[in-house]
């Protein structure tokens, strides 16, 4: 009856077999829930021709933490799918921009609620949906819309992914996950949208059966690999955001 433990010993081991050409979703909104340690491991692992999905490409703030932009700079990324492909403030500078403007990486810009819902749809067997978001704007140009009950909606497709890299606060060895506060963000949606889910975990990974079944944000059936984050400096932990890069 016992379930097998999903704990692996290192970040390197957790990402060792990620093939070139993979579609990978990265959890996180600002610092909370961002899998810094798995991004570092992927930089070292070197898989190429990746499609990377996250809220932003990162790099607008100091101190800079591991982000999609670093994978782009490392020549590993074919395409990003984000709700920001330029900085939120035009005066900020994103490391990503130079590569995007040079044509070295493709980008798909998606409204944040649509990004979340496309992941959610993939995770619950819905191929597409209509949303009011973006109607009448540049992102809807040339795309299918439909009037329902007198209002125009834009057709958006589900976004299944090969891998999700997540950061959780607490887990048991079966992969049941709890996120803490705004760490949750995209993480449960990406877990359900992915065929393989790798999670870096902040607290000691608990024996199976330790977590209250009523208080699990992502059930272990979605999760394949867990790695405990070591203390600093070996492990990477969020820091308070400093002044913006100018």
């Amino acid at each position, binding site marked *: 009856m016992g379930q097998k433990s999903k704990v692996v010993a290192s970040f390197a081991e957790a990402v060792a077999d990620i093939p070139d050409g993979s579609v990978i979703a990265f959890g996180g909104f600002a610092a909370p829930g961002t899998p810094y340690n798995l991004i570092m491991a992927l930089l070292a692992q070197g898989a190429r021709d990746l499609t990377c999905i996250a809220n932003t490409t990162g790099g607008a703030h100091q101190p800079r933490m591991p982000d999609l932009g670093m994978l782009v700079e490392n020549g590993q990324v074919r395409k990003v799918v984000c709700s920001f492909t330029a900085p939120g*403030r035009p005066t900020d500078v994103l490391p990503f921009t130079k590569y995007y403007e040079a044509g070295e990486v493709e980008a798909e810009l998606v*409204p944040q609620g649509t990004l979340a819902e496309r992941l959610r749809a993939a995770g619950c067997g819905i191929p597409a949906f209509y949303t009011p978001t973006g109607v009448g704007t540049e992102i809807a140009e040339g795309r299918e819309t439909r009037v329902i009950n007198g209002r125009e909606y834009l057709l958006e497709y589900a976004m299944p992914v090969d891998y999700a890299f997540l950061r959780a606060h607490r887990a048991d060895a079966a992969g049941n996950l709890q996120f803490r*506060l705004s760490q949750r963000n995209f993480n449960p*949606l990406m877990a359900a949208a992915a065929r393989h889910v790798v999670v870096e975990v902040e607290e000691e990974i608990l024996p199976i059966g330790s977590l209250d079944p009523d208080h699990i944000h992502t059930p272990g059936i979605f999760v394949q690999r867990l790695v405990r984050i070591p203390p600093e400096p070996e492990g990477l932990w969020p820091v308070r955001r400093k002044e913006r890069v100018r």
Partner: protein
Amino acid sequence: MSGTDKIGWSRQQMADRLAREFQDGWIVNLGVGIPTLCSNTDIGGREITYHAENGVIGYGPVLPEGQEDLHLVNAGGQNVSLNPGAAVVHHADSFGIIRSGRIDVTVMGAYEVACNGDFANWKVAGAKGGGIGGAMDLAACARRVYIILEHNTRSGAPRLVERCALPVTARGVVTLVATNLGLFEPLGEGFRLRELAPGVTLEAARAATGAALLAS
């Protein structure tokens, strides 16, 4: 039409003026930048619930260094506090709240607002990418869209215009605009002036505006 950024309301005063429109019991979403200042405004005993797009419902002030919880940020990535009764949801639920019309007002910054209620805040001229974030969802689905922006660009061009030149975020949604020169309502054929900031004349506001200005 230059130098209008030095007259009239400060950024905090612009935010104060819009915050005083908030009604008791409203659920409010504040965009990054000047709109964040709305949460500093004393609006008496009115109870406001602040919603952040990353799923935080009922957040409070930004906490000073050393008191912050690094697991908790608002839409701008600032480490905020939680008010009693707060709740946290994932992104799909957070945007479900937005799209289903639960947000009473969203306050956002913008590059341009047109008198037909269009506004533009996600892409600058000549840029290859854009920064949409949650703006298109909020603009399309919040019950009210308020905009805060400086009345003119640094070079003196009007930001209140007849038609947006930049790619729009949503069409026909803006109902109230605060600038350093006053409070304005897009009315289709022009902006209705609801209130002038202290020291600003109707003539000065009219000269700084790129669309008809209808005195209240």
